[in-house]
C-alpha cells in the first residue's frame, strides 16, 4: 500500500522560473490496485511519480510504502521496493549486454551481489520461460545484445524485468508513449496481464486516454500540481474518453471564468 500525504515540491524557488510542481498532494493506493495518472503537460503527474521513486527531495509531506516511511530514503534504496519502466525504451537496460544478462541483473536488483557466474543454466531456463510468455520470439535470442531489439520488444522486456521480483509498487512513466501504435498496444496489453497475474500495485502516468480508460482500476487527474479528480469504483466503471475530455475542458473553462464572466452571469441568473 502506498500513502502519499500532503506532499509539496517547488522547483527553482524564489526565482523567476519558480514552478509549484506539487501542491499538497494526498493519494492512497490500496494494495493490488492499478491507478493511472493523467493530466495536461506540466500538471505534475511525472513529478508525482518521481517523488515516489525518490528522484528529488520533497519540500513537505510524507510517503509511506508497504508500512515504511520512505520519505527520506534515497532512490537506490527505494528501488528494493519499486519497479520502474520509463518512457524511453533505452532507459533501464544496458544496451551492450545480452537479453539474459539484463534480465539476470534485474532478478538480483536490491540484493548483495558477488563474483560468480551470473547466467547459470537454471536461471537461463527460467529466463527463457518468462521471456516466452511475452510471445515475441525473444526466448531464442537470449544471447543477443538488448540494444539490437526494437523499441517495443525492449519495452516489453523492461516491463518483465521491472516486475520480476514482484515489487511492492510498479511505476510506469508513459511507458508506451515512445512506441509505434502496434507496439504500444502490445505493451499495454502485457502491462495489464502482468499486473493482474502478479497482483501488483501500480501507478501509471499516461497521455493516452484510451489506456487510462481500458487498463487501470482508478484514474487520477492532475492539474497545476494538484489532484483535481479521482475516478474510482462506479465512477471509474462508467467513465469513457469523452467524459475525461469533458473534465479537462471543464478545468480549462473554469480557468477562463473570471470576474467579468461572473458579472455577465449574475445578469443572466438575476
Amino acid at each position, binding site marked *: 500500500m502506498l500513502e502519499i500525504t500532503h506532499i509539496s515540491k517547488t522547483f527553482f524557488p524564489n526565482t523567476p522560473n519558480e514552478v509549484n510542481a506539487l501542491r499538497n498532494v494526498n493519494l492512497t493506493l490500496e494494495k493490488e490496485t492499478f491507478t493511472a495518472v493523467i493530466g495536461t503537460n506540466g500538471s505534475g503527474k511525472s513529478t508525482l511519480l518521481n517523488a515516489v521513486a525518490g528522484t528529488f527531495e520533497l519540500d513537505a509531506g510524507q510517503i509511506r510504502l508497504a508500512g515504511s516511511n520512505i520519505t527520506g530514503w534515497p532512490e537506490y534504496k527505494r528501488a528494493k521496493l519499486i519497479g520502474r519502466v520509463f518512457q524511453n525504451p533505452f532507459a533501464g537496460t544496458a544496451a551492450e549486454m545480452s537479453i539474459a544478462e539484463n534480465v539476470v541483473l534485474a532478478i538480483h536488483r536490491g540484493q548483495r551481489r558477488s563474483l560468480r557466474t551470473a547466467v547459470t543454466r537454471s536461471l537461463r531456463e527460467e529466463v527463457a520461460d518468462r521471456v516466452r510468455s511475452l510471445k515475441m520470439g525473444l526466448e531464442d535470442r537470449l544471447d543477443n545484445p538488448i540494444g539490437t531489439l526494437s523499441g517495443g520488444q525492449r519495452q516489453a522486456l523492461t516491463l518483465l524485468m521491472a516486475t520480476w521480483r514482484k515489487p511492492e509498487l510498479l511505476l510506469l512513466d508513459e511507458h508506451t508513449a515512445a512506441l509505434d501504435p502496434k507496439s504500444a498496444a502490445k505493451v499495454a496489453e502485457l502491462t495489464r496481464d502482468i499486473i493482474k497475474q502478479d497482483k501488483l500495485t501500480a501507478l501509471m502516468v499516461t497521455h493516452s486516454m484510451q489506456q487510462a480508460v481500458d487498463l487501470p482500476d482508478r484514474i487520477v487527474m492532475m492539474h497545476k500540481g494538484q489532484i483535481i479528480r479521482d475516478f474510482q469504483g462506479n465512477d471509474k466503471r462508467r467513465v469513457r474518453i469523452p*467524459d475525461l475530455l*469533458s*473534465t479537462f475542458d*471543464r478545468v*480549462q*473553462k*473554469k480557468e*477562463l*471564468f*473570471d*470576474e*467579468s*464572466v*461572473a458579472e*455577465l*452571469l*449574475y*445578469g*443572466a*441568473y*438575476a
Partner: protein
Amino acid sequence: MQIHHKTRGDYLFVETEGRLDANWSEHFTDTVMNFVREGHHHLIIDASKMVFLSSAGIRVLLLIFKSIKKVEGRFFIYNATEFVTLTLTTSGFGDWLITALPGDIPGQATSSMQKNYEHFSLESDKGQCLSIHNAWRPWKQVKRSDIKNIKCVDNLFSLGIGSPGMDNTDRGKQFGEFLAAAGHVVYQHPAEESRSDYLIAEQAFIPTMQCIQALTLEGEMANLMRFSPTDEKRFFTLSQIVGTMMAETQMTKAGLVLIGEVEGLVGASLIKSPGALKADSIISYPQIKEWLNFSGERAYARHQAVILGVVSREPVNDEQLLFPLGPDSEYAAHLHAAVFPHQVLQNGRIDLFETLGQFFNGPSPLAVLHLVNDSRPVIGLGESALVRGACWFAPVSDEEVHA
C-alpha cells in the same frame, strides 16, 4: 480526387474526377455532407470522370443517399463511366444511375440559394398563453412552496430550472436547466461532468418536471420562418432571426421553437443544484464558479440545436425572467438550447411535431444551455448564431405571473 460543384435550379451538381475508394471516401463524404448541411438536398453526382468505385465508395454514397432520403431529397449518379455503372448495377444500386437529366433542371448553372428568409403562415391564428413561474430567485434557499409540477403534455412548451420525476426524495439535489417541447423533455443534470438526459412522452407516460423557475407556453404555433445561408450571409444571430420574425409579423411578444444548425452557442448551465443552498445566500466570485458553468467559447459548431423560449420587444424585465437578447438589441428574451449531434433538416414548410420527433428519437442530446449574450467589451463572445434552420413562433396573447 477532384470535386467541383455547381447549382442548377434546385439541384446541386457534384462533379467527381478520379477514384472514389477507401483513400478518398472520407474527403468525399465531408465535402458532400457540407453541401447537404447548407440545404442542398437534391444531388446529382456527375460520375463521367470517376474512374474507380470501391465498396468503401459505395458505402459513402449509400450514407449520403440515406441522409437526403430522410429529408425527401433526390439523389442520382449521372453519366457514370462503364466501370462505375457495372459496379453499381451488379451490387444492386443501379436505381441511382441516370443517363438523362431530370426535366426540371435548367440548362445552365444558376446562383445558389438567393433568399435568406422564407415565411409561412400556419393555419392557427390563436395566440399562446404564457405562464411565468419565478418563485425561486438566485440564490435563495429553495422552499417546498417554490416548486411547481409541470406536466409536459403535447401542446405545451416550457423552459426553466427544474427536476425530473414526481417523488420528493432526492429532488433538492437535481434542479437544472431544461426545455420541454411537445412531450419531449431535455434536462441538464446539475453536476460538473454530467451528461444531459431526456424524457419522451410515450403512450400513457407524460414527463413531469418539478420547477422552481419556468416559462410555459400553451397553444399552437402560428408561423414558420425558414432561414438559409447565402454567399453573402453565412449565418444568423438570434437577434437577427428574432428581429426578422417580429418585424414581419408585427408581434411584440412571442413564444418560439427554433431548430437549426449551430454556428456557435454562448451559454451557461447550473453545475450545482439550487436545492443544495442551506440558506438565502450571496454567491460572489469566485464561489460562483462552483455553481455555474460558462461555455467559454462559441460552442457546438456544426451540431444541431433545439432552442425554445420567449422574446419580447418590451423593456428587460427580471420579474418575467427576460434578459437582453443581443448587443443593442431592442428585444429581451429567455432562451434555452438543447444540443444534438447533427441531423439533416428538411427544406421548406415542415411540421414542428414531426421534426421534434425525429430529433428526440435520434442520437441523444449533448447539453442544455441557458443562452446568454456575452456583451463584455473586447473579450465578449457575442450572442449565439445559427447557420440554417426553422423557427416556429406565435404571439403571446395571454400572460400570467406566479411569483
